[in-house]
């Protein structure tokens, strides 16, 4: 007979890892399925200064290593498998992967989000040749060069600021919808002599030859600017393409609908972290992971 896990967690970001820590610490057999990216999007954070307990700050990879080590310590089993389907068979939840399938009494979805693309001419053609979706990963290649950063969220503001340490000039383009919030770092960014903020504009096209050379703008008098790189740091959307097949409901932009205990519309299936689009912070993702784990354990107990 196939093993039936108490809890299957899909995703190894802060929410998934925290869920694993909680359920395995309470002696619930826990399988965590991941795509090889243990730590999720938090791995891209070059400095985390607002995670409680670390007053001097630390890097995303370091914090995620702590999470990972803690989950392993309590017995969470990790498997690198790509999830291709989820189904609710009542008492058991079935997670299909490219390598087979797993059964669990409960399921916690913590799949995070994927980066939103602009879908403009040139974006795909110049991906990896000047177009980047990760400033902390690729920023060092743009030493003394000119870059544009597009995005209105906190990540875009902070990354634009960090790029001023590397690049010669940074065009910051919040987009025509304007800023998501007035982050404190925004004032620092605007005051930086290397930064030119292009408010009211969007990027219409990215062009170049072998590599990116310029971006075409819409929204004002400025028609184009010469750049060596474009960092597209838009806020994220859910990765949850398989959810609708499973009957899990999402809102209009793909965020999984959950109740106060992180339960989806399907009993015994929970969601936590960025895939619920609440908070977008490591601490909120971890909190949701813990809530989902506690609710899942309660669900199992009730069923016994």
């Amino acid at each position, binding site marked *: 007979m196939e093993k039936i896990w108490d809890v299957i967690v899909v995703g190894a970001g802060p929410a998934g890892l925290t869920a694993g820590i909680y359920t395995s610490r309470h002696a619930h057999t826990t399988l965590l399925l991941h795509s*090889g*990216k243990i730590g999720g999007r938090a791995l891209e*954070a070059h400095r985390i200064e607002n995670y409680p307990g670390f007053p001097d700050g630390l*890097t995303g990879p370091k914090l995620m290593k702590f999470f990972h080590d803690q989950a392993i310590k309590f017995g969470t089993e990790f498997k690198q498998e790509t999830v291709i389907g989820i189904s609710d068979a009542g008492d058991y939840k079935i997670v299909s992967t490219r390598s087979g399938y797993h059964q669990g009494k409960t399921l916690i979805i913590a799949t995070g989000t994927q980066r939103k693309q602009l879908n403009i001419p040139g974006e795909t053609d110049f991906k*990896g040749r000047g177009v980047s979706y990760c400033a902390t*990963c690729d920023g*060092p290649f743009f*030493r003394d060069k000119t870059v544009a950063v597009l995005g209105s969220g906190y990540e875009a503001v902070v990354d634009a600021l960090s790029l001023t340490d590397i690049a010669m000039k940074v065009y910051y383009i919040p987009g025509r919808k304007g800023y998501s919030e007035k982050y404190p770092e925004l004032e620092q960014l605007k005051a930086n002599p290397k930064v030119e903020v292009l408010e009211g504009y969007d990027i219409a096209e990215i062009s170049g030859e072998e*590599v990116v050379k310029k971006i075409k703008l819409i929204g004002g008098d400025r028609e184009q600017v010469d750049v060596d*790189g474009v960092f597209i740091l838009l806020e994220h959307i859910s990765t949850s393409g398989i959810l609708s097949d499973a009957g899990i409901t999402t809102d209009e932009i793909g965020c999984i609908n959950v109740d106060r205990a992180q339960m989806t519309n399907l009993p015994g299936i929970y969601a936590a972290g960025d895939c619920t689009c609440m908070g977008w912070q490591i601490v909120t993702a971890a909190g949701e992971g813990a809530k989902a784990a506690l609710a899942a354990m309660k669900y199992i107990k009730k069923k016994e």
Partner: protein
Amino acid sequence: MNLVVIEYFYNSVCPYCPAAKSLITKVVEGLKNIEFVEVNTYTEEGIKRGIFLNLMAVPAIAIDGIVKMTGWPFEADDLINFIDEARNI
């Protein structure tokens, strides 16, 4: 059989680098006359090497000093073809 030098560019914050390394390792495992070099672009030496090769993103693979694959995903078949191509030069 020509020696083929594969340089794998990565850094500690790149989310797709572990998957890229896993794929490269599987492809080169058992192949003879391969020199596999890991280049951390978060080191001064590593970033200089990347910039010298006109690299603009990680993960990336250079074969015999020429960047062949940049950004994720990589396809194993493409990497095998690049290795074969380098052997036949």
